[in-house]
């Protein structure tokens, strides 16, 4: 089903699931009140289906999880950060299209 492959992350899970993972991860920092975040939701779900086993496609609700966004100085959403080996490979803010996100994911997969 649409969205089944998107992992919804919490602050508590972030380090283990993203920073210590062997697989690269894309984290979509979002909130329910943010129109552009809602608009890219379906794109994130499609990417999650297409990158199974290659890149972990994840979302983090910044209202419920304030620690991780604070750590990365996120004050604008949607912000999408691509992690590999605990490091930031790339990041982008705004309602970007699928083509641009695929270009970003090419850096790791």
């Amino acid at each position: 089903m649409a969205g089944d492959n998107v992992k919804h992350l919490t602050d508590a899970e972030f380090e283990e699931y993203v920073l210590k993972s062997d697989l690269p991860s894309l984290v979509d920092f979002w909130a329910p009140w943010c129109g552009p975040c809602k608009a890219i939701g379906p794109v994130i779900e499609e990417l999650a289906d297409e990158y199974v086993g290659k890149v972990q496609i994840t979302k983090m609700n910044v209202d419920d999880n304030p620690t991780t966004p604070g750590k990365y100085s996120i004050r604008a959403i949607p912000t999408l950060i691509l992690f590999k080996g605990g490091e930031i490979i790339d990041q982008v803010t705004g309602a970007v299209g699928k083509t641009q996100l695929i270009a970003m994911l090419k850096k790791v997969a």
Partner: protein
Amino acid sequence: MAKTDYQLIILGGGPAGLTAGLYAARDRLKVLLVEKGVVGGQVLVTDWIDNYPGFPEGVTGSELVEKMAAQAARFELETKNGNVVKINLTDEIKKLILESGEELTCQALIICTGARPNKLGIAGEDEFTGKGVSYCATCDGPFYRDQEILVVGGGDTAIQEAEFLTKFARKVTVVHRRDTLRATKILQEKAFANERIDFIWNSNVVAIEGEKEVERVKLRNIDGEEKEIAASGVFILIGTIPNNEMLPLEKLGADEYGFIKTDDDMRTKVPGVMAAGDIRSKTVRQIINGAGEGAVAAIASEHYLSGLN
């Protein structure tokens, strides 16, 4: 008539593009809408819309465009995600070249590429974008709970969003370069009555400063006096500039700011090329006339196409 991929291509998926798509799809044209990001355009960043008819209680920007997109989809409007980097209008066939290298051809083209927020072009602005500098109150406002922030501008967007931001911020200071606002009266009345909104008149922001995030801004008034004020956020809402980088402006006809000139039927100087919405040279940039122009452009395209056959 030479063969093309589509009869009509619509470039951009904001209210103008989606409405043009709705009309063209209902007219059973072979039509494609190409959108660089996600459909919706600037409406997506609008928190609340009280002046689009048919929604007596008002509507959020994202819900309105979701409904527009769903309505076009009901008539099977084909859409594609892609970034058009060049448009070739030298032939009777209009050719669009995408960033991916893919080429798309059509007989008629409607340009609805819209506009994006204008920048101040001052020190610290780019450096702190996303770290205190914002162009979207509805996206970023909630990060400023109980903080003191600045809104730069005096038009509808600036004043409406200043009001919106008081839901979160302890204090919102509007900095405007003139001594009166350009915003609609009802928005002005609400802002003046709001205890959390202050105004600094006849002043420009000249620098945005801080360590890792925005901490203060430097202002200069019309007498040349400078002062610093503390702020953790600066919302820059000073109008828009056209998304015209991929357009052959000279051939199409543009005004001094780079917006496309058209006639009353949305036709540019190039036969078969229309423009609608915020990319057009005009004085009023509202969702309602963007959508209306999309409809007119679609009908003009139908007339053009039927003249070809």
